[in-house]
């Protein structure tokens, strides 16, 4: 199958400004996913630069903007894509080279919510007990792979990446708030009580639309907002 790609190129070493490069490639029957096609392109043009690792949608390396929508190349069926397939880096973050963005700001926001269990009580000899129902509260939250598809599809994050935590960070914040083993809910809510950090979410729901793990950050954000309201009244 012959396919036509238009791929965003920028190498600060040689390019004054970014441009879109056309690639025409004959795909083999084994090339099922977009990542397979990109690997095939790279075998011909080794300057084409992108991140990839697990190739099964669990490491979160190969997030990119595919025909206008963020997604993971390794789980995107290449045959179903409208041609020419336009591939760009994730929007809103500085481009290092080609499809590789600088994710510093994204991880800074993730780190800002204290993404670790806080429980300073004495540790029992055995595991702490948690009922299956309480554990179920973490489903749909802990599975995040930090690919940044959601945050970089969010207009609020584009305008205020330094101030708005963004959907990925807020999903993680709620993952710990929802964990019955965590004792820092008050501190976590205080940390988000701010006109920007939480409340810049205007429920546009792009994050839900693009999440490759089918998670729902908007819902998690709503639950944090509910808790904020509850503690006022």
């Amino acid at each position, binding site marked *: 199958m012959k396919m036509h790609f238009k791929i965003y190129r920028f*190498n*600060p*070493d*040689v390019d004054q400004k970014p441009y879109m490069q056309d690639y025409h490639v004959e795909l083999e029957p*084994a090339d*099922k996913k977009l990542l397979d096609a990109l690997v095939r392109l*790279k*075998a011909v*043009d*080794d*300057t084409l*630069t*992108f*991140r*990839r*690792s*697990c*190739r*099964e*949608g*669990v*490491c*979160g*390396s190969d997030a990119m903007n595919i025909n206008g929508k963020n997604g993971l190349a390794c*789980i995107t069926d290449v045959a179903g894509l409208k041609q020419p397939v336009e591939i760009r880096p994730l929007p809103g973050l500085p481009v*290092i*080279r080609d499809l*590789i963005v600088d*994710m510093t700001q994204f*991880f800074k926001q993730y*780190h800002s919510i*204290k*993404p*670790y*269990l806080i*429980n300073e009580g004495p*540790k029992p*000899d*055995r*595991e*702490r*007990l*948690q*009922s*299956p129902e*309480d*554990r179920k509260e*973490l489903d749909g939250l*802990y*599975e995040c*792979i*930090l690919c940044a598809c959601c945050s970089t599809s969010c207009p609020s994050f584009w305008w205020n990446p330094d101030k708005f935590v963004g959907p990925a960070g807020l999903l993680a914040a709620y993952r*710990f708030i929802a*964990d019955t*083993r*965590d004792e820092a809910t008050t501190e976590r809510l205080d940390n988000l009580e701010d006109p920007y950090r939480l409340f810049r979410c205007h429920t546009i729901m792009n994050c839900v639309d693009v999440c490759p793990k089918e998670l729902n950050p908007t819902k998690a954000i709503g639950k944090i907002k509910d808790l904020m309201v509850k503690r006022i009244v």
Partner: protein
Amino acid sequence: MTVPVRKFDAVIVGAGGAGLRAALQLSEAGLKTAVISKVFPTRSHTVAAQGGISASLGNVQEDKWEWHMYDTVKGSDWLGDQDAIEFMCRQAPEVVVELEHFGMPFDRLENGKIYQRPFGGHMANNGKTPVERACAAADRTGHAMLHTLYQRNVRAQTQFFVEWLALDLIRDAEGDVVGVTALEMETGEMVVFHAKAVLFATGGSGRIYAASTNAFINTGDGLGMSVRAGIPLEDMEFWQFHPTGVAGAGVLITEGVRGEGGILLNGNGERFMERYAPNAKDLASRDVVSRAMALEILEGRGCGKDKDHVLLKLDHIGPEKIMSKLPGIREIAIKFAGVDPIKDPIPVVPTCHYQMGGIPTNYKGEVVAPKDGNPEVRVNGFYAAGECACASVHGANRLGTNSLLDLVVFGKAAGNSMIDFIRNERPALKPLPANAAEFSQARLARLENQTGGEEVADVRADMQKCVQLRAGVFRNSENLARGVAEIKAIAERAKRTQIKDKSRVFNTARIEALELDNLIEVAVATLVCAEARKESRGAHAHDDFPDRHDEEWMKHTLYDGQSRQLAYKPVHTKPLSIDYIAPQKRVY
């Protein structure tokens, strides 16, 4: 050209489960620790582990670490070191509880304890009946563990060097390890990391095979660096083929599917494992199941129009269990096999999955190498843990869920050994040799100036085809001898690879060329070691020598990468506290 030097107490290369667990130990002890990783930590391949982490918690039915140890020794086909195996199985409950305390979101039983499921080769009463020993977070246990360990390191303020590729190990004139060189991908600059102790936790190298469950990043970087620094590799002939890789795609389907009741069917719709392992059936050890599947396919009882795979059926366990305990598998089956396992079986084939061999260590995580007639002399300042290391707890065949356990037990143990070493033996940095970065600089310069060489992708593809064809599930003398000759020729070509991209900034062509240097060392080691072992043991199934031969071959292979010569060393038959588990015929 002078290369900048950065000084640390400890440097860890690799940020998967083993590297992060060690980092936590060192950071919390207040040591200045750098973790170098070529990917952001949560992208490490530990993230892809699915089914569980083993520990004899006994949450579902009675279990003992002694039974876990018996299963691991038997699983290893008596090539595992029994002191290291005892250490790991005894530590298991403690390190798993620790993960829970760190916040790992394990699934739970009705009584609130950690959920445990059966897994291949894990039995009660020294091999009698399957026991629930695999502690699981759905079928995303590796993801849950890796993220938890990363999060805990954020809390401990561990210093990460993300998207840096370690290039070479630095040893001084006495052979002591004093640091590593590493390349920052974003800038293309090289730095010397000068350290009192260095840990390799660089993972496996399954990408030497054409079909592998492994990520692109599993290129054996620690093994390549060790070989280039004159450290031998141990037991490199032993590669695990996971029974259930998605046919065609290679993506892993956890053994946990069979732990939850899934079964394998051949082209006649027969549950063929009943013939090969009447007791454990589909939950026999991985080498046993993979060989049975390969035989079914070879003998014409495969499935599909080319009869080239078997089927993993799980619809009978019900949608509820699939949705709650195996949601990731369902997602993978839909995306990579085009079937919904709630309705249809998944086409699977044995697929290269895990490297049992690696950098030789003792159970403290210290790297050991032969010196003056002693096969196990500590290499001062050098540690290894996880898949890149050979402790040896997995011997000739690893049991499922023992890999995640290996990471946290030996990551922690290596961290503790490093703390002791730094505090008691090397409180000050040992001086760097004058030419510390010269070797790495020469490698980069070679790549920069190479003309008339071959493309990295072409040489890599030929290497992968060769290893796949010559060192597969079933091996024979003729095939292996051919493989040795072929891989040596490919290794010569790899010395002259050429890249078109000469840019400094995030040059992934350069990274792939440097990774190929490492892969090639592992591929040559694999074929040379496999060709020499004239018996069948664990994952090394030799058609011309179908039996295990303990008198002659119950010994570890040591491969010297510079001469490509082999030596052997005895298996540790003495456990730490209990009686020796003597070799028996291995039936499941």
